[in-house]
């Protein structure tokens, strides 16, 4: 029943990622995320408002894989409405993957899409990623979020969101993980913090230059 409800949530909120992977022309973004045993650093530069290029370094605790990749993010479509916005992104990367188990370097790739819809009060997002290193190491993950702002702040205020994230990694023993989290942002800084139902901390930090 729990799985059914979560699947329903995933299907219902087929939308947005927690951080926009494309910025304004000439903009740099630094993202550092730690969630569910994955630690990653993504630094990207947006030559235009339509795409960004950057570096992603990631450490996956569970599969003991580290990788350094070149990542390309594309804003496929944006819908701007008077009090709402929705986005659809395509993200992909190619790079070198290392595993302590095999102790060798291999080329690997990943790809996925992210979508979001938000108003000033409500937020929903969905993103997925298919990661392929070799036949032994391939992984599909997807996550969805819903959020609500307890108060509506204006430009320059401290903004607060209450969010619920559901992550599904079919090949993991805990294939559904639910994480309630708080998101704060003010100016160019965004911070998210949460604690999952499998006892993992979530801490994400984003800075826009």
């Amino acid at each position, binding site marked *: 029943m729990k799985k059914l409800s979560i699947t329903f949530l995933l299907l219902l909120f087929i939308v947005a990622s927690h951080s926009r992977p494309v910025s304004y022309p000439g903009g740099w973004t630094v993202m550092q995320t730690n969630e569910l045993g994955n630690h990653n650093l993504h630094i990207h530069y947006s030559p235009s408002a339509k795409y960004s290029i950057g570096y992603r370094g990631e450490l996956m605790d569970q599969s003991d894989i580290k990788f350094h990749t070149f990542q390309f993010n594309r804003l496929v479509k944006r819908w701007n409405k*008077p009090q709402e916005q929705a986005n659809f992104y395509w993200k992909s990367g190619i790079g070198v993957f290392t595993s302590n188990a095999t102790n060798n370097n291999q080329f690997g790739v990943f790809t996925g899409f992210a979508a979001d819809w938000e108003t000033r009060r409500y937020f929903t997002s969905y993103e997925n990623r298919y990661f392929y290193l070799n036949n032994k190491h391939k992984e599909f993950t997807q996550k969805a979020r819903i959020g609500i702002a307890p108060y509506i702040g204006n430009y320059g205020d401290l903004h607060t969101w209450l969010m619920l994230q559901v992550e599904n990694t079919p090949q993991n023993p805990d294939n559904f993980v639910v994480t309630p989290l708080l998101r704060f942002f003010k100016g160019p800084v965004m911070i998210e913090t949460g604690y999952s139902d499998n006892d993992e901390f979530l801490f994400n930090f984003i800075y826009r230059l």
Partner: protein
Amino acid sequence: MKQFKTKTLISICTMFILGSTLSNHAFAAKGSPENGFNNCPQAVNVQVNGLVCDFCARALEKVFSKKEEVQSIKVDLDKGLVKVKFNQDQSLNQTVLTELITDSGYNVVDFLPGCSDG
């Protein structure tokens, strides 16, 4: 015949000079710093769609701050407005303003005079 040719030549030259003067004037008007509001050239309020996220709207500040004509911008999320103030005797035309806002990821709906607090 010769007089007719001279008259024709003078007419063509006059038309050419007149034409190029008018076109230069028209070009100057198009390229001049007009925000579309003669009674309020120093400020404009731009009604924008998609203005829902403070963190994302920072892009507007960054994009506009690169223009030397712009003194300051203020984003009003409640009204969906971008309020642009220009430096003394400077302005940006609506085409440039639209381009800057589109580059920031938003859509322009309308331009309003910026001297009243629209």
